[in-house]
């Protein structure tokens, strides 16, 4: 079993749709949960960051963490063509939290 599993995609939605991206994990030591956006052949860009369980909202983006189910989600409201990218979930523990374990990524295309 992979330590982090991400819904594979690809995902194609019309502009304005609500997008749901999801990851599950098996390591109970994970405490920090991140979502990165990656454009083709570029470095990951931090989008959302959550510590432990709960929700966090930033503009059109909402991150949810359910540690009891070992499940995290990223919701994008009113999706735009500029949201088209690969989205990576990543997780780390308390010790050396810079050592993040990434999911495989979900490629999202938002069509005008």
């Amino acid at each position, binding site marked *: 079993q992979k330590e982090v599993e991400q819904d594979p995609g690809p995902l194609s939605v019309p502009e304005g749709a609500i997008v749901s991206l999801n990851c599950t994990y098996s390591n109970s030591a994970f405490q920090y949960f991140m979502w990165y956006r990656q454009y083709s052949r570029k470095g990951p860009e931090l989008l959302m960051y959550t510590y432990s369980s709960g929700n966090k909202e930033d503009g059109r983006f909402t991150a949810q963490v359910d540690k009891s189910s070992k499940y995290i989600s990223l919701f994008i409201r009113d999706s735009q063509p500029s949201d088209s990218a690969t989205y990576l979930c990543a997780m780390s523990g308390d010790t*050396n939290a810079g050592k993040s*374990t990434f999911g495989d990524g979900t490629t999202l295309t938002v069509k005008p």
Partner: protein
Amino acid sequence: EPEVTQTPSHQVTQMGQEVILRCVPISNHLYFYWYRQILGQKVEFLVSFYNNEISEKSEIFDDQFSVERPDGSNFTLKIRSTKLEDSAMYFCASSERGTGGKLFFGSGTQLSVL
């Protein structure tokens, strides 16, 4: 906005040659990392570096790899004798603190080993 810069953006080398990938982390960051991404695969942790020493390394980071902070601004990854399977995009990242997982990545160096 401060950013992590990496040079070169592309590096082509022959198998068995040494390569050095360079990074300038964000200036007030204290923790530095190298990750790599083989084409079509996930981003993988290689090594973390703090206070002039390696704090953790993955199984990938074997004796052929080394890291160095030669001065107050640069952070380098050296691969001593490259192999075909070292072909990947290498990302440098930095963070302000060692906890929290908030990494800031550079744009990467695409390494092609022929």
